[in-house]
């Protein structure tokens, strides 16, 4: 499957439904996996990965690179990742713009970094070294976060843009994360998108989220009006619900700007029956087709003007 180009709408491959999906063999544009779940592993799921690779193109999305970490990069991990990338032939690898290690300890979650100028240079250098070690183009994902761990010298979107520019890497644009952060911190997500480096988007993520009561962190009800009625509540990026209408609308507006980039539906908790999940993939695909058609029509209309630099820079490996 390595020669297949990756675009359209894919699904995050999860063990909860791997038997069923391998049996049904739905026509997915691609699937995404986390290498950490397969590297150095044999047995049932390792074999299932081979069967998946026979059916769908695979892209990889890591969890523990810790691009924003202050611990040294773990070159044993990078060497293992390189071997794994050679096996699954993902055209790029993405991981998160966060830290997940400190003092030799792996925190197994995504913690935010401060949006500071000095951090841009430091993190970009780590991304470049990781890219050199793994040997495929890298993309960084904007994460959902719940606090600013330090003084902000720029907005998140400006920080993401600066890091991508300095590292000459791609952007894994998580549309849900942008929405979550905008809602929790009260900024305009469309303004965020205007500042984000959309010309560097290699792939997008979309997912669902849940509302929680702040302090108790118990699951809470969604406010009737999320622009003014969310006192004491915030969204947590659980990947445990269907995508909400606002996030799907944001995806559509963003795709109209970027044109056709692959979109991946993530679902990690309270996973519904596979048919429901595939139904959600189909809904996202309808949006994808509508938005990219609109983008193409606009491109056609603007024919003769210079096209913006798009993700091909990264996907072609020139980053």
């Amino acid at each position, binding site marked *: 499957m390595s020669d297949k180009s990756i675009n359209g709408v894919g699904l995050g491959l999860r063990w909860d439904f791997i038997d069923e999906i391998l049996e049904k063999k739905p026509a997915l544009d691609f699937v995404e996996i986390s290498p950490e779940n397969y590297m150095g592993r044999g047995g049932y799921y390792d074999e299932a990965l081979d069967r998946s690779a026979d059916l769908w193109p695979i892209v990889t999305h890591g969890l523990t690179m810790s691009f924003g970490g202050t611990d040294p990069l773990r070159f044993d991990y990078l060497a293992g990742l390189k071997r794994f990338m050679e096996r699954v032939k993902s055209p790029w690898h993405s991981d998160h713009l966060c830290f997940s290690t400190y003092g030799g300890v792996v925190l197994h*979650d995504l913690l935010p*970094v401060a949006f500071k100028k000095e951090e841009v240079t430091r993190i970009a250098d780590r991304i470049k070294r990781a890219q050199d070690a793994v040997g495929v183009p890298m993309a960084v994902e904007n994460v959902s976060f719940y606090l600013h761990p330090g003084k902000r010298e720029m907005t998140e979107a400006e920080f993401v843009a600066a890091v991508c520019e300095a590292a000459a890497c791609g952007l894994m644009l998580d549309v849900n994360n942008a929405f979550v952060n905008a809602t929790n911190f009260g900024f305009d997500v469309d303004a965020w998108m205007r500042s984000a480096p959309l010309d560097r988007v290699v792939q997008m993520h979309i997912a669902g989220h849940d509302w929680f009561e702040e302090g108790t962190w118990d699951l809470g009800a969604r406010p009737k009006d999320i622009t003014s009625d969310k006192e004491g509540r915030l969204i947590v990026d659980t990947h445990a619900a269907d995508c909400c209408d606002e996030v799907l609308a944001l995806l559509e507006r963003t795709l109209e700007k970027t044109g056709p980039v692959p979109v991946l539906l993530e679902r990690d908790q309270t996973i519904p029956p596979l048919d429901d999940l595939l139904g959600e993939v189909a809904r996202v695909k309808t949006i994808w087709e509508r938005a990219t058609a609109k983008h193409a029509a606009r491109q056609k209309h603007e024919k003769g003007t210079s096209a913006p630099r798009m993700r091909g820079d990264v996907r072609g490996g020139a980053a």
Partner: protein
Amino acid sequence: MTGAQRLQAMMADACFGLDSHEHFDKDLRAYLARHGVAKEDVEALLAAPRRLGLYRRLIRHNVIAVIDTMLERTRARLDRVAPGTFTQAIDAFMAEAGPKTPHMRDVPSEFLAFAAPRWRKDERLPAWIVDYAELELYEFTIGVAPRPAPPPPLDDVAADRPLVFADPHVLVRLGWAVHEVPADDLVAAPEKRDTTILVYRDAAHRTRFLDLTPLAALILERLFAGSPLASSMVDACAAGKHPLDDTVLAGAARLLADLGERGVLLGARAV
């Protein structure tokens, strides 16, 4: 330390520190000051004073969930005889060691390596609990052990040849027959008896367990180390103070035939 290192050290401690939440809940400013967080960064963190607690909850949940899942039966037995012990061990693991592996699946093994010496010393706990936990964890770790390399060229089994076995496999030596304890019986205690279990993965990727006699364990130990069949038998009998008689030879033949049927014994290494 740089400013970024101070911030990350603080957040790591907030998430994994034993009682950090009590400190930052009580006085976040003082907690941040103790970690040397710069004044300009302190103000940003004070703007969302309860959010460190959210990260603590999210991160601990991830680690606890994987340990609970893979040591479920051990936890149930510890919770019955000494409620809170298992949770305290996880808390101590996070605070004093923490996961070093990027692979979530390997976290329970790191946890057990940390907890086992403590549990062995704890007189409130069953003396067999570490053996029980180790065998429970092998069920998972053998199931996910790396894909084996292709075997070398093979011949028929012969006395003067080393034998070739399918990976993954491991000989687990235990002081208690914990494999005989019914999974759903939280009260049953195993017999105190030196036991060796061959744990291997079958062709359908299931983890399988084979209770070995002491002599069979001695023979396999040598075969797994690469000794030829004949010398493995001689050395094993000498170590076990057992005559190498017809009974032993017949028993060894049955053992090897059984291992062949199970797909564990592949053949003899070709010259």
